[in-house]
């Protein structure tokens, strides 16, 4: 069973990866990978009151979603979305658990509101004014493919375009020792049922038993192993090279996802 779509715009932000054009240059070998902490922009698209309340995971998701929709020339208010992440805001989670461990148990109402797994989707909807449906998923380390599968079934079954945003951010200590995601990394892409002027490539996905691909650069391979959204790197490398090719991405313990990329 094959699921297909056209990729019409990409956003990337992560450690040493500043944007999709920059990541594409690194992944295609034009530029060296230089490890550096992820720099998250302030989401100017949000009203000031909301802007102050957003944590790193929201800044990350909004930044890559904005880059992907802008380069796809897509109107976010018309675009259904799939947000997929292995966790919610780790820093807020830590603050709440810390407050609950004290006898006073004073939980901040704003922190609680922003502790939901769908916090980034909520702020994306507020920022863009989009009232379209937004699905918010978690599949732990398999979250990228879980999101891609859900997005591709929307394209295949409902024949509409969809924005996929896969993103993960770190937990502070002491949770960090139990879930050692090193930094924030997000990937977004606009998937469309038909070829358009902004289409970059066609993607065909099948589930497979094959072993997943690794990255030849050791630092990028370390990222792929450490951040769930970075499991997309072999796919992004194909898109960066701009030639037809196939990659096998890690998914669940019992299955992987094979993606065939054909540039437009």
């Amino acid at each position: 069973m094959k699921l297909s779509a056209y990729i019409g715009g990409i956003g990337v932000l992560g450690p040493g990866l500043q944007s999709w054009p920059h990541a594409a240059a690194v992944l295609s070998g034009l530029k060296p990978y230089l490890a550096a902490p992820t720099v998250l922009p302030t989401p100017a698209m949000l009203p000031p009151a909301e802007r102050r309340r957003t944590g790193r995971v929201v800044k990350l998701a909004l930044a890559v979603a904005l880059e992907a929709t802008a380069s796809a020339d897509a109107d976010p208010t018309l675009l259904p979305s799939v947000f997929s992440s292995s966790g919610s805001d780790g820093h807020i989670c830590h603050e709440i658990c810390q407050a609950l461990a004290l006898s006073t148990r004073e939980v901040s109402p704003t922190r609680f509101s922003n502790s939901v797994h769908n916090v980034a989707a909520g702020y994306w909807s507020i920022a863009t004014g989009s009232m379209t449906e937004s699905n918010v998923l978690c599949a732990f380390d398999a979250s990228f493919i879980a999101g891609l599968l859900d997005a591709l079934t929307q394209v295949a079954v409902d024949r509409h375009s969809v924005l996929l945003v896969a993103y993960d951010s770190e937990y502070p200590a002491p949770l960090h020792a139990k879930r050692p995601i090193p930094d924030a990394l997000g990937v977004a892409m606009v998937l469309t049922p038909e070829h358009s002027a902004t289409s970059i490539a066609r993607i065909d996905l099948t589930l497979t038993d094959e072993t997943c691909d690794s990255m030849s650069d050791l630092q990028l391979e370390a990222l792929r192993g450490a951040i769930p959204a970075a499991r997309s790197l072999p796919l992004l490398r194909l898109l960066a090279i701009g030639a037809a090719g196939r990659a096998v991405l890690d998914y669940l313990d019992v299955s992987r996802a094979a993606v065939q990329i054909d540039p437009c």
Partner: protein
Amino acid sequence: MKPLLLAEFTATSCIGQGVAPTLTALLEQRSGLARCEFETVKIDTHIGEVPGVDAQPLPKDLQIFNCRNNRLAELGVQQDGFFDAVQAAAARWGRRRVGVFIGTSTAGIMQTELAYRAREAVSGALPPSFVYGTTHNAFSVADYLRQRCRLEGPAMVVSSACASSAKVFGSARRMIEAGLIDAALVGGTDSLCLTTLYGFHSLQLSSPAPCRPFDAARDGISIGEAAAFVLLMRVPENLDPDAVLLYGVGESSDAYHMSAPHPEGLGAKRAMQAALTSASMEPGDIDYINLHGTGTPSNDRSESQAVTSIFGPTTPCSSTKGATGHTLGASGALEAVISILAIQNALMPGGVHTTRIDPNLTAHYIKENRRAPVLRVLSNSFGFGGANCSLILGRAG
């Protein structure tokens, strides 16, 4: 959308473990809400606690998943022969062809809350016994169920706050229709924890009294917990007219506020309209609406406006949260099962605890049970972040 068969279903909440006691409680208009004596929580509120969750063992080989949320999922999946029905589906189609789609808001975060009370004095480290991925992480409940039921199809958790386990029907529907799977274990599990009890309290959204949806004096929610599951599959050729089908799924976003609904219920209205469009139905085709009906002043006001704007003031509607409490990420699936019971038993369940219906709410809220044919039900689920989902369920024949 192509309708799908709700082939098997089960629900466990504070009003009953399995569908028979759940139906009895609905027929008797009995509430399961009681004063909060949960764990070490000191909040003046009522909750819907499922008895026996902590005594529920998990299989020896799945002890790594041990937390209240997965114990509740295990308790739930054992009711009504549901586990055996899933095994039969896996045998029929193959384990790779059955997917797992579960909604939850907080999963097993209570393990982390407990671990933070047991941090190592000097280093601050969490105890070695604490495992994050199989308890705290949102996916843990779907991962538990797929390993417990030995299913190897695609698996995901939807975590859109209180719309989570309504939205799973949408994801499962797409994956079945795309041909990736033949059946889906769909549902929701959310369990009591300190994060939600103290969190809703901090927002002044939880009531000291048992919640009274649509009452003039309503003053907040009562938090509950539940595990509710449905086995979803394509409609077979020889369909029993008494079978219940999923006819429509409608989703939207409020684009308004993280924790307050749109004041005029525009997002809710859009989700209900999308569900009707998806089912190719008119408002007049709906016999009963199972409301989100949390019992907060703002939710019920905006939902009533949205309902009335589409259905007018005559379609009977009620919230079953006065009986079950607001089971958060499990409420969509729990209320889908209650909707199936409504259809199969010609029962419009009256809202419990509501004494004087708010005269400003124009939707036709019913306080007493009505025994009348129920062919089609619309069930609403709305959540933080402005996530909205409406399901339409109905008789096959």
